[in-house]
C-alpha cells in the first residue's frame, strides 16, 4: 500500500481541486494564483536541473518559455479557432479536449529543440560563457517573434481563449486548472525520475567534477545536452500553459526579467533540491500576492527578505537536501522504487 500513497494523495488533491473549481467554491482569483503557482513550479524545477544539479549557469529560461508559448498558441488557434491570419478552424472545436495536451507537449518539444540549438555550440564552453549564450538566445527568440508579423509581432497574439472555451463547451469542467495541475506533477515527476536514474546520475557527477565524470564513463557532452533539452522542454510546457491561461501572448512577457524571476526562485529554494524548488516557487508566488496591500513597499520587503535569507542561509531554503532529509518521519508514509 505504502508504494501508492503519494499517487493516491495527488489524485485526491486533483479531484478536490477540480470539484472546488467547478462549483466555484474557490474564486477565480485564488484559482489564477494557484495556476501561476503551478507554472512557477515547472519553471523553477526545470531550471534547477541545469543550474542546480548540473552546476551550469543558464539565464535564458524565458526564451524557451516563449518558444513553447508561441508554438502551442499558433497551433491551437490554427486547429480550433477562427483567426484573421490562419483562417477558419481546421478541426472540429469539440476535438480540442483530446488534442490540447498534445498541443502543450508539442510546445514543449519545440522548446526542447530550441534548447538543443543553444546547447550544441554552448557546451563546448563552461560557466560564464553559457550564461552569456543563454541571455543572447533569450534576446534572439524575442527579436524573432517581434519580426514575424503573421503572429502579431510586438503586438502579441491572441485567440487561445476560444480554444479553452471550446473545451469547456464540450465537457463542462475546469480544464485549465486540471491541466496545469497534471503537467506540474508530471514535470516534477519526470525530473525526479531522471535525476535518480542511473543514467541521470551523470548530471550531479558533472557538477562534482567533469573530468572525473568523463573518466568514470559518463558521456558528459551527451549528458549535458539531454539535461539542457529536458530543462528547456519543460520550460516550453510552462510557456504553453501560461499562454492558454492568459489567452494572449506578447514577446514583452518573456524578457530577461522573467528569466531572472525564475533564477530567484531556484536560488531561493536551494540548488540541487527538487522539493526546495517546488517550495520556493509556491512561497514566492504566495508572498507576492500576500504582500499586495503594501503596494510599492512590497518591492522593498521582498528583496530585503531575499537578502536576509542569503545572509543567514546562503544555500537557500533547502540547500541541496530534500524534504525527507529534514523530516525523516515522512519516509514512513511513502516509498518509491528507487
Amino acid at each position: 500500500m505504502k508504494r501508492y500513497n503519494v499517487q493516491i494523495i495527488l489524485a485526491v488533491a486533483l479531484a478536490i481541486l477540480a470539484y472546488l473549481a467547478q462549483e466555484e467554491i474557490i474564486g477565480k482569483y485564488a484559482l489564477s494564483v494557484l495556476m501561476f503557482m503551478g507554472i512557477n513550479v515547472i519553471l523553477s524545477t526545470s531550471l534547477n536541473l541545469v543550474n542546480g544539479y548540473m552546476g551550469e549557469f543558464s539565464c535564458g529560461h524565458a526564451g524557451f518559455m516563449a518558444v513553447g508559448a508561441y508554438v502551442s498558441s499558433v497551433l491551437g488557434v490554427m486547429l480550433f479557432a477562427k483567426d484573421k491570419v490562419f483562417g477558419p478552424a481546421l478541426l472540429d472545436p469539440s476535438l480540442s479536449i483530446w488534442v490540447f495536451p498534445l498541443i502543450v507537449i508539442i510546445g514543449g518539444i519545440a522548446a526542447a529543440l530550441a534548447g538543443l540549438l543553444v546547447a550544441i555550440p554552448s557546451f563546448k564552453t563552461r560557466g560564464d560563457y553559457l550564461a552569456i549564450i543563454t541571455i543572447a538566445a533569450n534576446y534572439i527568440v524575442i527579436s524573432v517573434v517581434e519580426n514575424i508579423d503573421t503572429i502579431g509581432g510586438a503586438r502579441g497574439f491572441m485567440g487561445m481563449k476560444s480554444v479553452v472555451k471550446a473545451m469547456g463547451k464540450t465537457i463542462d469542467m475546469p480544464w485549465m486548472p486540471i491541466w496545469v495541475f497534471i503537467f506540474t506533477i508530471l514535470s516534477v515527476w519526470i525530473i525526479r525520475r531522471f535525476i535518480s536514474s542511473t543514467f541521470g546520475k551523470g548530471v550531479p557527477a558533472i557538477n562534482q567534477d567533469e573530468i572525473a565524470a568523463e573518466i568514470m564513463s559518463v558521456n558528459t557532452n551527451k549528458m549535458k545536452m539531454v539535461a539542457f533539452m529536458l530543462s528547456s522542454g519543460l520550460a516550453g510546457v510552462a510557456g504553453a500553459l501560461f499562454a492558454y491561461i492568459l489567452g494572449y501572448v506578447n514577446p514583452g512577457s518573456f524578457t530577461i526579467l522573467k528569466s531572472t524571476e525564475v533564477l530567484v526562485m531556484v536560488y531561493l529554494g536551494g540548488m540541487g533540491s527538487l522539493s526546495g524548488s517546488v517550495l520556493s516557487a509556491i512561497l514566492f508566488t504566495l508572498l507576492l500576492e500576500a504582500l499586495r496591500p503594501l503596494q510599492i513597499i512590497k518591492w522593498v520587503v521582498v528583496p530585503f527578505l531575499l537578502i536576509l535569507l542569503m545572509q543567514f542561509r546562503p544555500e537557500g531554503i533547502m540547500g541541496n537536501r530534500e524534504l525527507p532529509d529534514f523530516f525523516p518521519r515522512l519516509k514512513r508514509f511513502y516509498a518509491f522504487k528507487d
Partner: protein
Amino acid sequence: MKRSLVKSTLLAAAFSMAAVPALSADVIKIGFNIPMTGDIPKVGESSKLSAEMLKEDINGAGGLEVGGKKYMLEFIYEDNEAKAESAVTTALKLIEKDEVLAMIGPNSSKQAVPAGQVADDNETVMISPWSTNPDTTLDRPWVFRAAFLDPFQGPVAVDFAAKRFSAKTAAVLYDLSNDYSKGLAEIFKADFEGKFGEGSVKAFESHGTKDQDFSAQLTTIINAKPDFIFLPDNYNQVALIVKQANQLGWSGPIMGADAWGSSELMELCGDLCKGYYFSTHYAAKGAKGATKEFIDRYTAKYGEVPDDVAALTWDATRIVLKGIQQAGELTGKLSKDREAIRDGLSSITKFDGITGSMSFDEQGDPVKCAVVVKITDEGEFEFTESVCP
C-alpha cells in the same frame, strides 16, 4: 508557553489578513489596475495622483449623486507590476475579492489586452485610459478606452505636415520592438504614400528599444533629403535621436506623436527639441476652460504639469462615474449594477472631457479630436491646431 505565543501570533496575523473592511451600503468602489512598479512606474503614479484629486473633489462635495442618493467613492489602487500575468490576477482580485463596480486601467496594451479578456469574461466594465491596441476593446462589449487609436494619429501627422511644412516627401524612424511605434510608423507610411504617391516616404528606418546610437539610420535618412522626419518614438529616445540628427547636420522639421508628451522630454532634449511639433491628446499651454482648471489645480497640488496619462485617467474615471449616474440607481446587487453601468456607459452620446469632447463607437472606442502642439522656446507644449476625425 512559547509555542502558544507563536500560535496566537500566527492566528492573529491570519485573522487580520482575512478581515474585510466593513462594508457600507453607500460606497461606490472602483478599482485601479495600474503599474506602480516595473518598467513604467511614472504612468501608474500619474494615474493615481489624478484619481486621488478627483476622489477628493467628489467626496468633498458630499459624494456622487446616483438616482437621488449620494454615494461616497472608494478607489482601490492595485499594482500590476507592468506584467501581463500580474494584470490578470490583479483584475480578478479587483473584480472578485474587492467587488468593484468598474475597473480603470491597465494602461499599457501588453496588459490591457489580457485584462480586458478577464473583465469581459467576468462581466465587469473596464476602461483603459491609455491603451491604443485595437484588440483591447475589439468584440468586447464590457471594455472601453479613453484614448484615440493609433490609426488616427498617422493621418493627423500626414495632414499637418503637408499643410505646415508643405511636405511632399518624408522619412520615418521608429522603434521595432515597440508595437505602438511600429504600428504608427506603418500607418503613417501607408497614408503618406497614398497621398503623395509611391516612394514619397524616402526612408523607412527602424531601431531597437535599448539602442543608443542611431547614426547609421540617420545618415541614410539625411542623405535621402526628405522634407521632414516622422519620429513616433518614446521621449527618452527622441532626445537621443534629435541630438544625433542635429550633429549629422539635419536642420529640417521633425514631427512626433503622443509618446513625446512627457515632462521629462525638455530635461533630456534641451534646446534642440524646441520648434518641433507632435500630435497628442491635449495641450497644457494655451488650454482653456475645464482643461486649464485641471492643469492649474494639478500643478498647484503636486508641483508638476500633468502628463497625458493623468489627463486621460481623469477623463476615464469621470466617464465611468457618468456611466454610473446614467445607470439610474444602484440596487446593491453586484452583477445587476455592473450591467446597468455598462448600459449607462454605452448610452453616453457626448462626453466633455479635458482631453476633448468624445463619444463612443460600437467597439467602445472614443471618437475624439487630436491636437498638434508646438514645443515653444520656453519648453512648453503649445496648442497649434486641433484635428478631428
